């Protein structure tokens, strides 16, 4: 859906999406890194289970909700990636107390 510009010379950062290593770039938000990864990163909603991807990328739509380093319901479009970050795609209602 998206590709990286050839001009982008930022250093690589390795994150893990549902346990799989994915190359991101320093300064990417989690949502941008997920969309750039080419993987199926659709979450499913807590209401009907419908698949969703980020819609606004600016912190207002909450369609980018994702579990980051064990903390759920985070807005992936507002969080920068960090080396070794563990991302889980949320399916349905988010489990608590795990």
């Amino acid at each position, binding site marked *: 859906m998206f*590709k990286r510009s050839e*001009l*982008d010379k930022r250093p690589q950062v390795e994150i893990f999406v549902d346990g799989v290593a994915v190359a991101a770039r320093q300064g990417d938000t989690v949502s941008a890194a997920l*969309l750039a990864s080419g993987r199926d990163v659709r979450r499913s909603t807590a209401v009907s289970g419908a698949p969703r991807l980020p819609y*606004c990328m600016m912190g*207002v739509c909450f369609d980018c909700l994702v579990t980051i380093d064990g903390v759920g319901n985070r807005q992936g479009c507002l969080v920068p990636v960090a080396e070794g970050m563990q991302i889980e795609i949320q399916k349905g209602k988010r489990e608590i107390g795990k």
Partner: protein
Amino acid sequence: MTMAPKREAYDVVVIGAGPAGLAAAATSAEAGLSTLLLDENIGPGGQVFRAIASTPVTERAQLGADYWMGADLVQALRASSAEVIQRATVWSLDRNLEIGVSIGSASAFARARRVILATGALERPFPIPGWTLPGVMTAGAAQTMLKSSGLVPDGRTVIAGQGPLLWLLAAQILRLGGRIDHILDTTERGNYFAALPHALAFLTSPYFAKGLSMMREVRAKVQVISGVTELAAAGDGQLASVSYVAGGKRETIPADLLLLHQGVVPNVNLAMAAGVEHRWDELQLCWSPVLDASGTSSVAGIAIAGDGAGIGGATAAVVRGRIAARAAVEALAPAAAAKLAPMATLRTDLAKAERGRAFLDTLFRPAKQFRIPAGDTIVCRCEEVTAKDILDAVAIGATGPNQLKAYRRTGMGPCQGRLCGLTVTELMAQARAKSPQEIGYYRLRAPVKPITLAELAAVPKSEDDVKAVVRG
């Protein structure tokens, strides 16, 4: 990682580091007021100057001169004494000017003598059939990814809607080697005539020449279809096609990515939660705060600057930020105001920056069928409530957005109505033959952004609690 505000109280707290907030904070600090700037994003710039200090797109021509203007604002801010905290999400503001802010998963409270809200705008909801499908995004989303990560569309891409941002985005995508297959222009034909009376002001505004050359640049490379009157996205769990009607003829085109845009509207959540009075703006078709000439709101001590005060664009936002900050300085440290640009000069600057706005507002006033959906089209993305659901509730007695909550969970999800509020107001107004002003808006409450229970549980105890423990 946690960097709480250094003080418990400030003269001025500015919320949002876009054009208005950057200018306001620098101005306030320059006058010697203790100033805190809180911003939710990774770096300063807001949406228009997104990633200004970190973008990988360093070839200046690609993002354009208007973008790089933001670098000067950031430089001025950094040269000032203002305390700046990024990734700081303000989740509460009340009429006592007490601010609850989440920074690095810990919450803190700060008090202000003056608050300048510079929380900007968000893209108007574009509730067409299929707009919740993966692969449908806002044009602003694509622009955010382009500016902050150098990402451009590379599948079959359709851009649909109207407004200056749409053409700017298209030009930027093309300059970076991205792919656009079609642009579907939804501008209503009648708007061209309606906008004519404002054309002279527009022709002499800075928008005109820039806008024209950008449209030429895009039209040379992309097929543009004008006069689009219907639009729908379709696919099974993922966008597969976009269908539209233009000139009475329906077409369906395969697509991997659909970017929607029909203008921007003030981001009202924090201001409304603080109790600031808003009115329905009939021209811009959105809620705008009731403000005086200096941006002062109905809540004592709270001013609003930038697009959150009513859409005016980045240049106007900068000036409004300076005006609001100057007004704060005049109130708190009148002697220091002499150091700043005179109010009369600022007002002249603002009038200049706002020239041409009426033309744009009229020309790009979005069509009714793209604002007020029908049938199974989802209105509330969070709670998955359709237009029909809302009309059914109206039929059995729901009179406004708050009464609707007795029937449906519209607006009660995490986005707190940001993506459905305008639609719900206009839909109910139409169904009940009332004006949007009469129908009203959701009563918004803190936290305007969710916080975890653990984070709230960890906030500092009140002084009384501490005393109670000490006295044991």
